[in-house]
């Protein structure tokens, strides 16, 4: 501990260099945080969904397939199922603009039982249930568009050839790492309008919706009574519909989310490689700075050794200085970015691309670890050289 002052003084004696090293490490770590948090936050939210014991039913052929709406009731009646709701993607436009917030047709009676972490005050829920054209919206969406309870929210069809004239009856509350920009409305409302168009209507077909036909639940969220029931129910649902026109693929909510992040495909690898490149270049930058610092101090180190400092101690002094400088930069970058994204919500500025964004603790701490590692490795060569340098040569050397 008594050497700490010495180390700190050394780190401070060339403020420009130390400052630049810290800055370049901080910026690079900030960047790493942004890159890795994107996937890590998504995964964390995914794993968190495990506690809700939900499974998701979709058509075996993907989102383009149909899950007939009648199955929602059939599944809800199965043993071990607490509640089930359709989740039909409407994909409409708001104010005639293509928007990036999700709009889902759900069963108003069961949606808040199925999504137990989503809360809606009782009076708002009652009002939502009572009005067939009713809707509830997420808090972030309400803030962003200045929506209040009682407002009308007309949506124009894009996927479907029908428009929706929704009335907002509630603003739900949900955990931070869930989508707080959704619009939930009555599935019946959409379905009835589609039914009016008739089966051979002159419009309505798309790659994500086989036709404008009514009666499609989209996907089905099912809440099971406990974790043990989920796997059995996944199998049971799929077996039930295997030989129908629309076989299903049922998986836990976690696996479903995982599937989404897998769709990102090669993006993940690229983020990883860029991260690696940044770490390696940091090694060069920090190592360079440390080597330069040592070169300037050749004589000083010789003096230290001449007055009796051991090799090990000199080695430690140099290493600690390197780790300290890199760690400071790393702490600024990682904890700074964590604080920044915790205090400041960037999701409105991503055009809905990110429903939420934060730096998970796991990632921030890993980043801090990486910066300490960078400091250690960058200090090793200069430290070994300093420890092994000859006292006589060092004292004689004119810098």
């Amino acid at each position, binding site marked *: 501990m008594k050497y700490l002052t010495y180390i700190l003084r050394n780190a401070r004696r060339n403020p420009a260099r130390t400052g630049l090293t810290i800055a*370049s490490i901080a910026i690079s770590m900030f960047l790493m945080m942004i890159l890795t948090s994107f996937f890590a936050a998504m995964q964390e939210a995914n794993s968190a969904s495990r506690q809700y014991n939900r499974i998701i039913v979709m058509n*075996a052929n993907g989102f383009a397939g149909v899950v007939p709406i009648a199955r929602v009731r059939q599944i809800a009646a199965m043993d071990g199922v607490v509640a089930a709701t359709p989740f039909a993607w409407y994909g409409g436009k708001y104010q005639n603009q293509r928007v990036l917030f999700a709009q889902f047709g759900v069963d108003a009676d069961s949606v808040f039982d199925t999504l137990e972490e989503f809360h809606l005050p009782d009076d708002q829920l009652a009002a939502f249930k009572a009005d067939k054209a009713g809707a509830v919206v997420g808090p972030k969406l309400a803030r962003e568009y200045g929506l209040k309870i009682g407002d009308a929210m007309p949506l124009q069809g894009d996927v479907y050839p029908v428009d929706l004239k929704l009335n907002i009856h509630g603003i739900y509350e949900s955990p931070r790492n869930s989508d707080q920009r959704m619009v939930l409305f009555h599935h019946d409302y959409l379905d009835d309008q589609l039914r009016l168009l008739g089966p051979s209507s002159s419009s309505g077909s798309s790659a994500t919706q086989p036709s404008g036909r009514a009666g499609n639940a989209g996907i089905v969220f099912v809440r099971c009574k406990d974790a043990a029931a989920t796997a059995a129910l996944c199998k049971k649902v799929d077996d039930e519909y295997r030989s129908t026109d629309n076989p299903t693929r049922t998986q836990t909510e976690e696996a479903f989310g995982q599937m989404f992040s*897998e769709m*990102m495909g090669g993006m993940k690898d690229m983020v990883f490689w860029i991260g690696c490149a940044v770490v390696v270049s940091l090694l060069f930058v920090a190592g*360079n700075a440390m080597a330069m610092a040592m070169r300037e101090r050749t004589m000083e180190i010789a003096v230290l050794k001449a007055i009796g400092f051991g090799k090990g101690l000199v080695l430690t002094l140099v290493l600690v200085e390197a780790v300290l400088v890199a760690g400071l930069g790393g702490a600024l970058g990682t904890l700074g970015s964590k604080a920044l994204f915790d205090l400041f919500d960037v999701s409105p500025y991503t055009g809905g691309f990110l429903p939420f964004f934060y730096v998970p603790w796991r990632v921030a701490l890993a980043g801090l670890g990486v910066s300490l590692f960078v400091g250690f490795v960058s200090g090793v060569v200069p430290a070994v050289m300093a420890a092994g340098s000859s006292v006589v040569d060092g004292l004689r050397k004119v810098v």
Partner: protein
Amino acid sequence: MIPFKYNVRNLRARWKTTTMTVLGIALLVASSCIMFGLVEGLEKSLKISGDPLDLIVLRKGATAETTGGFDTGKADELLTLGGILRDGEGPVAAKELLNIAVAERHSGTYGNLIIRGVQPASRKLRSDFKIIAGRDLEPGKGECIVPPGIARVYKGARIGGLLAFGEKERYRVVGLFTAGGGSAESEVWADLKDVERNTGRDGTVSCVQIRASGPAEFDRLREEIEQGAQFRLAAHPESRYFETQSDAATFLKAAGTLIAVLLTFGAMFAAANTMFSAVKSRTREIGTLRALGFSRRDVLFSFLGESLLLSLLGGGLGLLATIPMSLLSIETMNMNTFASVNIAFRIGPWVMAVALVMTLAMGIFGGMLPALRAVRLEVVSALREL
């Protein structure tokens, strides 16, 4: 003026520091080039190099081919309109049906692929369409052609393989095609009739592609399709349609640019660090130069030049390292359609120019403070310094 050789020799004399700095800068420049290349590629991968006379007909209100379906009856009528360019084989116009289905990758994960049911004229409507291996598909035989990016990543997507989507939909792969790097290179192409049959969606089409025979006909066709009582569809000029499709990439582009800029700043600090120590260890030399009669400006330019040289070396090396990248492509998801999109890195002249400008900026700003410090030195005290 101080000879430039002086700077070159200086960098060589401190070769260890120089190498470390150059490598550090090279890696950061390479990373930011890759980001820029990806942003460029993303833009390109959502577009198509079409003809200014091309129209895409969708249902009114629909914003994308994947969502804009309408009746085959209307589509057939559209193909008979006057004003459509004709060649020996009939009108240069095609009905197309899109399906998005899940397919398995070699890695065992799943992706959503767009399957486009096409008609013979579809190829003429994409001017850069080319079969690069195997042969084109024959209608009605359940065959498909795929772009190389999909052939590489998905199970059964090589020539001769069987590309399976769920239980019911499968196509024999008979050829590989390219389409100038545009959006078609993220799609599987099959025969329209086959797709209709496999998806049970005969009676509807997703879109109709039309090429007008001239600018006047182009405007007339648009009006007829949009106003005509029997159609009431939306006819988008192809160029504008793809413009709106790539809007969805705005955020990704901004994010990619931000990352590249941050990388550049990181590299700038690294260059500045090296230059600072270069100036510091040469204090006496600088004093000597001044005493010999070189002006402050000479010294400033000399150090700026050295910094520029340093970052150009790094930037050049970084650019060289990204050259093989332009052969690669990555597959990811289009957030707009949830379908797979293939992005080929495009390290073109534009990316190279941006990288070069950033490298120069890095050299100038990184070298400015150290150079100013060198200039401010008092000759006498600089000479006295050890």
